[in-house]
C-alpha cells in the first residue's frame, strides 16, 4: 500500500481519532463497507486554560454571590437581634430610642411611604408625558438629543438635587403649599396644623421641610428612570397597529390611546414601580430637606417628615452596637420592601406583551 493510494478522508480522520492506524488499514482494504460513521460527541473536551477560565469565572461569581449573601444575612442576623428585643412593637412603635428598648419603624416607614407616594404622583405624569413626547411627538431631529438629556438627568448626583430642593425649590414652593392648604385644607392630607391664614403673625415656615417638598425633589430624581423605561416600551409598539389605527381615521391621540398605551401598559406600571423602589431608598436629598419627626405625619404639607434612610443617616453616628442593630433592622425592612417592589416591577414588565421581547 503506497501513500498515494490512501484515502484523503481517512488520512484526515487519522489526525483526530486516536486509534488512527487501525482505522486507516480498514478503510483501504474495503472503503465502502467498513466505515463506521459514529455520531460525534457534541461536547468537546476542554483544554487546560479553558478549565482554568471556567473555574475563575465560576469563582468570581461565587465571590460576588458570597458578598451579596453576606450583606443580606448580616443584615438579617443583626436586624433579628433588634427585632427580638423589640418584638411586634417594632411595627407599631413610632419613637426611636433603642437604648430604652422602645423603638419602632411606624413613623419612619409611614414617612418613607408618604414621600415615595408623593414623589410617584408627581413623577408618573411627568415621566409619562416625557416618554410620550419623545416617542410620539418630538421631531426626529431632536429625539436622540432628548433621550440623552433625560438619561443625563438620571446621572446627576442626588446631593445636587438635594441642594436645589433646599435652596431653590423650597422657598418657591411655600406659597403654593400655603394656597393648597388654605383652599384644599378640608382634605385631610392637605391640612396643616399651626398655620392660620388670618393670623398675620403665623409664618409660612410651617410649610418648609415638608414631605411635599421632599417628594417633589425625589420625583425629579425618579422621573428620568421611569421615563426611559416607558419610552423604551412605547417605541416598540408595532408599526402595523399604529398605521392601522391612523388609517382607520384615528387622531394622533386616538392612535396613542388605542395602540401605544395598551401596548406599553406593562412598561408604564413596571417603570413606575422601579421608580418607586428608587424613591424608597433615596437618602441624602431627603435628609437635606426634611426636618425629622418621629410621629406619623400624614399632613404632607406640614413641616416635619421622616424616612428610614434619613433615620439611618441621622442616628448611625455614635451609636452603640445595639443601636446599630436596631438601625440594621430598619435598613432590613427598607431592603425587603424595595426588593418586593422591584420584584413585582420586573415581573410585570416581563409578563406584559411589550416586555416579552425586551426581557
Amino acid at each position, binding site marked *: 500500500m503506497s501513500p498515494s493510494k490512501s484515502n484523503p478522508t481517512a488520512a484526515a480522520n487519522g489526525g483526530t481519532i486516536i486509534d488512527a492506524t487501525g482505522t486507516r488499514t480498514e478503510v483501504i482494504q474495503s472503503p465502502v463497507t467498513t466505515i463506521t460513521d459514529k455520531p460525534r460527541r457534541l461536547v468537546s473536551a476542554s483544554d487546560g486554560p479553558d478549565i482554568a477560565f471556567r473555574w475563575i469565572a465560576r469563582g468570581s461569581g461565587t465571590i460576588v454571590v458570597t458578598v451579596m449573601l453576606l450583606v443580606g444575612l448580616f443584615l438579617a442576623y443583626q436586624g433579628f437581634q433588634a427585632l427580638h428585643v423589640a418584638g411586634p412593637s417594632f411595627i407599631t412603635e413610632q419613637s426611636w430610642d433603642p437604648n430604652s428598648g422602645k423603638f419602632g419603624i411606624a413613623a419612619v416607614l409611614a414617612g418613607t411611604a408618604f414621600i415615595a407616594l408623593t414623589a410617584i404622583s408627581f413623577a408618573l405624569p411627568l415621566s409619562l408625558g416625557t416618554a410620550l413626547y419623545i416617542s410620539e411627538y418630538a421631531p426626529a431631529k431632536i429625539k436622540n438629543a432628548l433621550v440623552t438629556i433625560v438619561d443625563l438627568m438620571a446621572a446627576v448626583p442626588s446631593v445636587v438635587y438635594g441642594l436645589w430642593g433646599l*435652596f431653590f425649590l423650597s422657598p*418657591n*414652593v411655600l406659597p403654593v403649599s400655603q394656597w393648597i392648604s388654605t383652599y384644599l385644607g378640608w382634605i385631610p392630607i392637605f391640612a396643616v396644623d399651626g398655620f392660620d391664614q388670618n393670623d398675620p403673625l403665623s409664618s409660612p415656615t410651617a410649610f418648609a421641610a415638608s414631605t411635599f417638598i421632599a417628594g417633589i425633589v425625589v420625583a425629579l430624581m425618579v422621573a428620568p428612570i421611569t421615563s426611559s423605561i416607558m419610552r423604551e416600551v412605547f417605541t416598540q409598539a408595532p408599526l402595523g397597529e399604529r398605521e392601522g389605527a391612523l388609517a382607520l381615521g384615528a387622531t394622533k391621540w386616538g392612535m396613542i390611546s388605542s395602540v401605544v398605551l395598551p401596548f406599553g401598559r406593562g412598561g408604564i406600571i413596571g417603570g413606575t414601580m422601579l421608580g418607586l423602589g428608587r424613591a424608597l431608598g433615596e437618602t441624602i436629598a431627603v435628609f437635606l430637606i426634611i426636618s425629622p419627626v418621629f410621629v406619623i405625619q400624614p399632613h404632607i404639607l406640614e413641616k416635619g417628615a421622616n424616612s428610614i434612610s434619613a433615620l439611618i443617616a441621622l442616628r*448611625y453616628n455614635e451609636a452603640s452596637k445595639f443601636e446599630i442593630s436596631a438601625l440594621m433592622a430598619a435598613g432590613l425592612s427598607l431592603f425587603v420592601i424595595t426588593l418586593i417592589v422591584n420584584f413585582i416591577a420586573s415581573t410585570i414588565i416581563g409578563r406584559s406583551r411589550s416586555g416579552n421581547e425586551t426581557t
Partner: protein
Amino acid sequence: MTTVLDKRSTPPASAVTRGTQETPRTWIPPETMPPASEPRRSTATIRTVDVIRLLGSAFAAIGFTAWLFFYALPLQGVIGFVVVAYVIFLLLFGILTAFDENGQTVRDRIVAVFVNSLAFLMLLALFSVVVYTVGRGVGPLGNLNFFTQDMSNAGPLDPLTRGGVIHAVLGTLIMITIALAISIPLGLLTAVFLSEFPGRYARFVRTVVEAMTALPSIVAGLFIYATIIVFLGFNRSGFAASLAITVMMLPIIIRSADVVLRLVPGNLKEAARALGASTWRTVWTVTLPTARSGLTTAIILGTARGIGETSPVLLTAGATTFLNVNPLSGPMTSLPLTTFTFVKSPENNMIARGFGTAAVLMVLVLVLFALARAIGGRGPGQLSTRQQRARARQSRDDGYRYRARALGVPTSAVRRANPRSLPAAAATRSGAGVADSAAVGLTVATIAPVSPAVAEATAQQTRAARTLRRRLSEWRLLPKPSAAINRFRRSSKAPQGSPEPGPNSTPPAPDTSGPTRKDPDA
C-alpha cells in the same frame, strides 16, 4: 362576463333598455367634465391655525391671570401664577379649538399641548437644577485656590479666597479608583460567567445580583460601617468607603454588563466555536471585543453612580477638612460628602463653597456621562470609523501574511508588492461584516483555500444581487445604478481586504450579524 368596457359611447342607451335585452351590468359613464385638479394636501404636522390658537389663548391666559392676581383675588407667588395661567390657557385653547373642530380633534389637540408642556417641564427642571447649582457655585469656582487648597486653614467665616476642595477631589478619585479596581474584574468576570456558563448556579447568581440592585445605598454603607468599623474595629478610612461604594456599584455593573453580553450575536460566537476555538479563546477574542463599547458604558455609568453617591461615604469615610491621600489610614472625604458638610453650615460662604463643590462634582459626572455616550452609542459589533479602519488594516495584514506563507517569501515582500492604494474599503462597508471576518480570522490559518465550487456559488450570488439591484433601481426603489453601484464596484475591487489568501478571492464578508437590538439599559 357581461362587462363591457370598450363601448364607452353607448352605455346610456343600453341602460335605458335594461331588462329588454342583454345589457352590460357594469359600465363607465362618459366623461362629461374634466377631472378636477385635486389641491395638494399639506402633510406638515404644524398647522397654522393651531399656532394662531395657541398664541391667542396664551396671551389671553396671561392677561386673565394677571387680572386675577393683581385685582380680583388675593393671590401671590410665581409658581401659583404660572399654574393658574396654564390651566386657563388649556381651557381657552380647548374652547377655541371647539369652535371649528369636533370633540375628538379637540381632545387630540389638548393632549398634544399637554404632553408637550410636560416634556418641557421636565427639561426645564433639569436645566434649572444645572444652571442654579453652577450659578451659585460661580463665586468659589472663580478662585484658583478652590482647586489647589484644602479646608484645613479655612474656617467657616473665611472669605472664598482661602480654602478649597482639593482634598475632596483627590479623595473621590482615590475611592473610585479602588472601587473600580475591585469591581471591574469581579464584575466583568461574573457577567461573563452569567452569560457563558448558563445553568442552575448561574441563574442563582443572577437572581441574587438582581435582588441586590434593590439594596439602598445607605444600607450598603451601614453594612460596611457595622462590619469593618464597629465589629472589626478599624477606623473610618477611604478604603472602607471604597468597599461601601463597591458593594453598591457591583450589582449595577454586573447587571448592565450581563445585558450587554447577552446581546452579542450568537453567530459570532458560533463561528469561533466552529473554527475550533475554546470557550476561553471565544470569550477573549470574540465576545469581549464585540461588546467592548457596551461594557465600557456599563462601567462608566456605574462609576458615575458611585462617584455621585453620598450616603455610603457619609457612614464610612469620616469627613475631614485636610488633604489625606492614604486610603488605609485616617479619615477621607469625597466631593458629595464635602458638599453635604458645607451646606449644613449656616454661613453663606460655606454654602457657596458647597455649591462650588456640587458644580465640580456635576461637571465630573457629566464628563463621564458624555464619555459613556461617545463610546457606547453603538450596539455590540458595530464599530466606529476608526475601529473599522483598524480592523481592515489588520485583516489586510493577515492577507499579506497568508499569501507570503503560501508563496514562501517574507511578508514584507508581499506588502511591498501590494501598495496601500486601496486599503480594503470593501471590507469596511459594514462594521458588523468586519467583526465577522475578524472572528473568522481568528483561526483562519487552518482553513484550506476556498474551493472553486464555493467561489462560483458566491459569484453567482453576487451576480443575482446586482441584477436585483438593477431591477429595483428601474422601479425607482433604489438610486440609479450609475452612482451607487459604480461606487460599490470601485470599492469592491480591493481583494486584499478579505483575509482569505490565494487566487480564490472571495467577495466581501457577508453582513451576517444577528439582529443587534438596541441596548435597553445602557
